[in-house]
């Protein structure tokens, strides 16, 4: 049976970061208990008395900061998943956290209950930058969190970091990567800062940010960062994701390979049985809808064959491995290089993709212009 991913959303955080546009809210602690109840109810909806349960090969609890909940509750949510889905023995089970929300005890509970991958938000090694981003922790506290996690038995650890922060120099950025890698994490997600509309940072930017990183400098950070991580043993397997070999995030790889996934919680998206749908991002509305109707879906879209082809290409070209020719043929029943020979030639001419016998993949330049590659396949 087809393996799917499972995403659970936890829309609570100690403080809203200045760049964050995720559906997550500080100061709503009073809703934590009812929310968890609603979430478990949504998961429970998949518990089939008759027929086969969905097979799940990865679980990702994200947010927000899921670790604002105590360990037992999170373990309980995981148990609920195991009860309602057919979760693989060797499933990758990730939980997101932030320094300051985890201690040794909580980490032990999580590890023991089956979580085997921990993602920790660092963002930058420089405390002045952390302050600017509205983070609640210091670099030192991040370091402590990593060490505690390793002690609690987490071997597979990701750190989220950001480049292009106003006031961040190239040296700051490379230092962040070096220090993080030195902690023996297995995975680094390195994002270019996006100033999304509606965030506090966006408002600041409207007024004019001092130390804003120009486009040229931002690209230099990216390219030098890629080189440095390579030397440190992390290879780029996706635009913003770097792993030691064998530690790629399977849950996220499923998104990029355009696999199906189930999403539970407010604002969660899912792609199930050919339909993309999403829940209301409004925390209170989610709780109410779940209690009244047992359904918090706000909209859905049936993905037809052509759309599926496009989405597969749009997402697949984010990966270093690109689009595997055999996989593609197996999935859609036609040959990628044949069907799109003109477009692929054009992309090759522009130096955006490379083709060999097995796959078509983005070049180094292709990583900078991924939208252009995707656009080529949009009709």
């Amino acid at each position, binding site marked *: 049976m087809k393996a799917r991913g499972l995403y659970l959303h936890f829309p609570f955080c100690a403080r809203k970061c200045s760049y964050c546009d995720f559906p997550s809210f500080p100061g709503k602690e009073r809703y934590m208990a009812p929310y968890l109840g609603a979430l478990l109810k949504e998961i429970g909806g998949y518990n089939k008395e008759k027929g086969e349960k969905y097979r799940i090969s990865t679980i990702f609890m994200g947010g927000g900061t899921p670790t604002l909940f105590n360990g037992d509750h999170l373990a309980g949510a995981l148990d609920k998943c195991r009860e309602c889905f057919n979760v693989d023995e060797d499933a990758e089970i990730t939980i997101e956290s932030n320094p300051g929300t985890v201690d040794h005890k909580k980490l032990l509970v999580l590890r023991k209950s089956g979580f085997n991958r921990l993602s920790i938000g660092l963002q930058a090694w420089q405390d002045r930058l952390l302050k600017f981003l509205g983070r609640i922790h210091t670099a030192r506290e991040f370091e402590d969190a990593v060490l505690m996690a390793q002690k609690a038995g987490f071997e597979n650890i990701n750190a989220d970091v950001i480049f292009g922060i106003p006031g961040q120099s190239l040296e700051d950025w490379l230092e962040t990567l070096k220090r993080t890698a030195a902690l023996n994490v297995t995975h680094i997600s390195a994002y270019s800062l*996006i100033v999304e509309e509606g965030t506090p940072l966006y408002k600041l930017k409207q007024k004019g940010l001092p130390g804003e990183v120009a486009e*040229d400098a931002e690209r230099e950070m990216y390219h030098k960062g890629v080189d440095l991580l390579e030397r440190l043993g992390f290879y780029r397997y996706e635009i913003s994701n770097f792993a030691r070999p064998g530690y790629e995030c399977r849950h996220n790889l499923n998104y990029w390979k355009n696999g199906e996934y189930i999403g539970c919680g407010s604002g*969660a998206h899912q792609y199930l049985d050919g339909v993309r749908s999403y829940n209301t991002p409004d925390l209170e509305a989610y709780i109410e809808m779940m209690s009244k109707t047992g359904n918090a879906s706000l909209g859905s879209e049936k993905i037809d064959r052509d759309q599926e082809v*496009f*989405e597969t290409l749009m*997402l697949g070209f984010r990966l270093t491995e690109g689009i595997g020719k055999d996989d593609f043929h197996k999935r859609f029943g036609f040959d990628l290089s044949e069907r799109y020979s003109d477009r692929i030639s054009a992309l090759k001419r522009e130096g955006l993709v490379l083709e060999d016998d097995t796959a078509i993949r983005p070049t180094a330049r292709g*990583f900078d212009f*991924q939208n252009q590659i995707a656009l080529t396949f*949009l009709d």
Partner: protein
Amino acid sequence: MPSPRQQKIRNFCIIAHIDHGKSTLADRLMEYTGSVTEREMEDQILDMMDIERERGITIKATAVRLVYKDDDGEEYIFNLIDTPGHVDFTYEVSRSLAACEGALLVVDASQGIEAQTLANVYLAMDHNLELIPVINKIDLPSAQPELVKREIEDVIGIDAESAPLVSAKNGIGIESVLKSIVAHIPPPSGDEDAPLKALIFDSLYDNYRGVITYVRIMEGRVRPGDRIRMMATGKEFEVTDVGIFSPALVPTAELCAGDVGYITASIKNVRDTRVGDTITHADRPTDKPLPGYKKVNPMVYCGIYPADGARYDDLRDALEKLRLNDASLMFEPETSVALGFGFRCGFLGLLHMDIIQERLEREYDLDLVTTAPSVIYKVVKTNGEVIEITNPTNLPPVTEIESMQEPMVKAQIMSPAEYTGSIMELCQERRGVYKTMEYIEGTRVLLTYELPLNEIIYDFFDALKSRTRGYASFDYELIGYSDSNLVKLDILLNGEVVDALSLIVHKDKAYQRGRVIAEKLKELIPRQMFEIPIQAAIGNKIIARETVKALRKDVLAKCYGGDISRKKKLLEKQKEGKKRMRQIGTVEVPQEAFMAVLKLN
């Protein structure tokens, strides 16, 4: 001598500046004569093109028959002909005037006479129309009817003492207007038994009836079944229907000398019923057509291309349909390296061009790329041949040009006196030659300038409005051609000349124009994956250069389960944007860029 029947007919039009209340007065006249109910008024009278309503202008002439009963119970037939009110349509206006014996001259009691009004007053006087001044908007606190009366007497030289004072909006003084029409406008005359002579003052294409020809019968009579001939085009048709405008078309048994009405004759094309032409009977023709017919020629040309090349046929169909109703619209296929297949279109003026473009976009749902408008230049070649250039790209090489001429206009600008300085400055900048200045009532001036047409087709009116806080009004007429030192200014993108951006300018202005266009294009052309040089050149000489820097990245850093649909939408939007671009060589150019040459300030 008017026949007893004719004694009871009055044919007139209304002359007014935009906003001086022409339509409102017309509506009131209809209401007072009980021609239409209020509801019908909504449905019928105002049911004209959206564009006309929005812009407050009349593009097509319309006519309506009113029946007025005076105090003695005598019934009169009033034919009100609503004329286009813009300089682009001066010829159409003159034909509408020729169909009348009189005109109401509506003047805003707080604004006084405007340049456009004056131009049409002179036109009316040329046709010996009896003018009845009507002072409108007397309800406004700023109304100065006595001052405006004096102004009418001073400037136009007609007696305004007994001019009706009205407020069309509030229905004040309408009765006195109706009485004045009977008393002052002469009835039509013309032998009802002479050979047919009917003046075409407009025509309209109807899907079911073919062309509906708007006519004023000058002599004779016409009935269904008659065989008629268009004297200018020589085409003959059999009349299917005649009738009057009530304002809906109401068939009648016949139309006689003095009547205003319509004729249908299964005519397929408005070009067969040219405005100003004379209709007569094929078997008993009149010996001489009515005076004043001329074939109107376009003054302004521009290239019109479908944004999506695949819609070329749709564009052609739409232009053909518009031409059914607009004999003055000209177009012929044209090919541009930059824009692909399209049409070079000729218009009576800028407003006409604007209206056609807008109608194509709105009524036919077309996305257009239009090039900057050009006037018709005359080129005397070294071999003595004289050619006319409507597309700058077609200008012969400099070595083959002996001399060039450009069209000139006489422009009249009316404005409060305090703006005289800025108006003169503007005309100076536009290579104007000062002619005369007259003071009106001590507070306003009428300035006359000679200006090259190519200096006013871009943004002259906007500039004039902004420098006079909207108070100035403006009118012009073509007066001929004069020698001029003109050059072709080319724009190069990535080293390639973009034919659709070439334009002809006066030599003294080429540098400045080239620089401004290059700067403007730099703003409009989005960054692409490579650097794009923009150059302005005269011949081989580069006179301005700008660079659009290369894009460094086009990538979304994060794309997880919750981002996929959003990312797809973003890409679709980006694709839409790309579709609206023109591919020139390797450079993608937004459509607005082709109009960039227009917006110089």
